[in-house]
């Protein structure tokens, strides 16, 4: 397997597959040991839905894409407010930004 040297280390896909197979074998081994304190018919069998109430019908158990990473976007809400204000969907903003970057780069080039 060909190794790639990056100057400060190397990457070889063969070694990686070897280690991944080793890790997989260990995982399967540990998993096969089972869990002794698991008891059928107690609260250990109940669902946990990230703190949300668990619906009665399992068909309704859904986590829609729109609320994925809700906390992440909430934490960065000021950054996202700016970003959405920036993406106006307005054609003339597109052209103006392109022309602006061209002009800025032209001025920089003339100064060098």
């Amino acid at each position, binding site marked *: 397997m060909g190794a790639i040297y990056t100057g400060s280390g190397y990457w070889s896909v063969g070694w990686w597959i070897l280690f991944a197979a080793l890790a997989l074998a260990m995982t399967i081994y540990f998993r096969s040991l089972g869990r002794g304190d698991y008891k059928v018919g107690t609260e250990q069998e109940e669902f946990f839905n990230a703190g949300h109430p668990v619906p009665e019908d399992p068909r309704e158990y859904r986590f829609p894409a729109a609320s994925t990473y809700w906390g992440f976007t909430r934490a960065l809400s000021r950054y996202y407010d700016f970003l959405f204000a920036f993406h*106006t969907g307005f054609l003339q903003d597109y*052209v103006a930004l392109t*022309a602006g970057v061209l002009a800025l780069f032209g001025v920089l080039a003339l100064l060098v």
Partner: protein
Amino acid sequence: MTGSMPYVAVAVLFLCGLYMVLFEHNLFKIALGITVMEASANLFLVVLGYRSGGGIPVYTLASREAMVLPTPQALTLTAIVIGLATTALLLSLVVWAYRHYGTLDIQQIRRLRG
């Protein structure tokens, strides 16, 4: 001074076109602005190749030493062809946009954002 006048005309035409694209709200005027910008590019190429007092760059008519450069004229013709294709496509897109949105105001054609 007069030698650089064509370049001033190129710049003025170009800025007029850019102004139309940036500040007019009617889609047809935006399409016209792009055509004006294309015209300024074509004028620029033709002016580049011009030699004052030069002859016609046709082989069988070449009687003088100085000739107008033929290459920029070929470039201009190609650019005109491309400009025609772009303009035709742009106008048909404008027609379709009017059909779907019922308006020619670019500020109201912005369902895609964010």
